[in-house]
């Protein structure tokens, strides 16, 4: 009981700057709980993206580094290659990871870099004011797709978890959601598994989390959850797409 209400040691005693009802806070908490439970805080290095979570370093109590927009996986590679004993994760939004940083994440995943990526998919650029992201849904209105995403011109939204699981290199790839408690329980399990694979030095591990951005979707927090469930979840299917055991067993 008490466990759920106690603040993880890995999480700072500090209010976040996130908008009311934004799920970034939930995700921070899950990551912090997992790091506490695995007792790796003292050898963990987090990498902040450029996006709303650029200030994530204020909310965690372990070493943190701020990368350039999209480059977190390359920075993580640098850390992990010279200090394989460290536990390293990147925390990235969909603009950061799937747009400007697509090359970095693809090559890190394909090399099987032994770090973990937490990928926050909220279908827009949050920080800069709601522009279209590669994950924006067809016909979804954003500030740079005022008439809705036109798939004839900019293609369909990218399913990053599926894309990364297509590589031959072993990896752990999962997509979960953080929209309601029932999803959050599973999301935490996936995050924990991802870190465990890293600790076992097994493979690249990646958890995509379907999230919200009430502010830029122009919805209340409650409406945003409903919209995400009705619109995002049918397209971004939840589940484990790839597991390092797949290859070894099969």
């Amino acid at each position, binding site marked *: 009981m008490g466990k759920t209400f106690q603040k993880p040691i890995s999480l700072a005693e500090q209010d976040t700057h996130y908008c009311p009802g934004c799920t970034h806070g939930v995700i921070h908490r899950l990551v912090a709980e997992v790091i506490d439970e695995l007792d790796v805080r003292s050898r963990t290095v987090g990498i902040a993206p450029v996006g709303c979570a650029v200030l994530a370093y204020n909310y965690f109590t372990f070493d943190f580094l701020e990368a350039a927009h999209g480059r977190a996986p390359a920075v993580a590679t640098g850390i992990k290659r010279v200090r394989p004993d460290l536990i390293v994760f990147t925390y990235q939004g969909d603009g950061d990871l799937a*747009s400007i940083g697509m090359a970095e994440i693809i090559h890190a995943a394909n090399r099987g870099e032994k770090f973990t990526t937490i990928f926050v998919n909220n279908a827009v650029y949050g*920080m*800069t*004011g709601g*522009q279209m992201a590669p994950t924006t849904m067809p016909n979804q209105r954003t*500030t740079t797709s005022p008439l809705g995403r036109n798939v004839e011109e*900019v293609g369909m939204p990218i399913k990053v978890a599926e894309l990364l699981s297509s590589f031959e290199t072993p990896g752990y790839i999962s997509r979960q959601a953080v929209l309601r408690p029932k999803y959050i329980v599973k999301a935490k399990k996936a995050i924990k598994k991802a870190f465990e694979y890293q600790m076992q030095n097994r493979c690249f591990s990646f958890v995509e989390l379907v999230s919200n951005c009430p502010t830029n979707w122009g919805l209340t927090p409650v409406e945003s959850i409903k919209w995400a469930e009705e619109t995002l979840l049918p397209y971004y299917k939840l589940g484990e797409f790839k597991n390092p055991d797949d290859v070894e067993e099969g």
Partner: protein
Amino acid sequence: MGKVLMKGNEAIGEAAIKAGCLNYFAYPITPQSEVAEYLSRRLPEVDGVFLQGESEVAVSYMVFGAAACGERVFTTSSSPGISLMSEAISYIAGAECPAVFVNIMRGGPGLGGILPSQADYLQATKGIGHGDFRLLVMAPASVQEAVEMVMMAFPLAEKYRNPVMILGDGLIGQMMEPVEFPDRLQSEPINKDDWATNGMAMRKSEQRNLVKSLFLDPEQLNAHNLVLKAKYERMAREEVKYDSYNTAVNYKALVVSYGTMSRVCRTAIDDLKADGFEVGMIRPQIVFPFPESAVYDAASKKSCKIVICIEMSMGQMVEDVERSVKGIRPVRWYGKCGGEVPTPEEVMDAIKACEE
């Protein structure tokens, strides 16, 4: 059309359309994302091309591609994004294609901040990418001037077949001021059939065109660099542009300042005048080529004891001012970074302190 109240970023977008540029590629970044937001609405109305690229790297090469076809094209970004574009800008200059880049500067280095800054002066005027090349760099001080400069930038880029940069600070992008749009530019890109990869059929020629920057032969590369050098020398002869303020009187100090900062200086100069202290100002409107003789002449006025460079950077323009003043007067600097634009009071104090 009359005067309209418009945000700098939106006015820049509209000005490009008025200049006949209907091709725009961009990636969001504060404080200039409104250009993309505006053009995402506006360009489809005029059958233009709007595309949000996956990164500034990609965007800048999309610009290269469009420019190589001889089409008018531009992009806008802010400091970190411009750094990512600097590679393509080097290729575009090397391949001698016209294109317009707008940098609505924010503070740096690295992620820095998002508030107004002039911290990319050196990057823009001296070293935006590898290799021997320069950009023609225009620095607006108001929304109206930003509009006029954007409209001038395209023909200039075509005249020199060289990238042109509009170097504005965050305030130029974010502020709303009345603007009056000049008439639509009537000029078309010139002589593009001579060099552009616009398709032999289109230009009714059997001669293919090649757009490239590779010259493996040292003599050829040297010759190419000499051609580029001659262009920059021609810019220095033909494109110098500046504004003088309060220079008809016998001023004791000369300020050199540009962009938003120069407007703050103007207020400070007016207030100092009321106190009986005369200060003149040269405001470069084009910062490359730099108005060297204008600064020299203004500094050599008998009454002038000192030259003060005032900017929102840690003194990036000082070198150019010193070079122009040629040691005949001491050159001082005042500035502030981080996004807090110095107030007229602070500028007044700084000028007085330098003079003492």
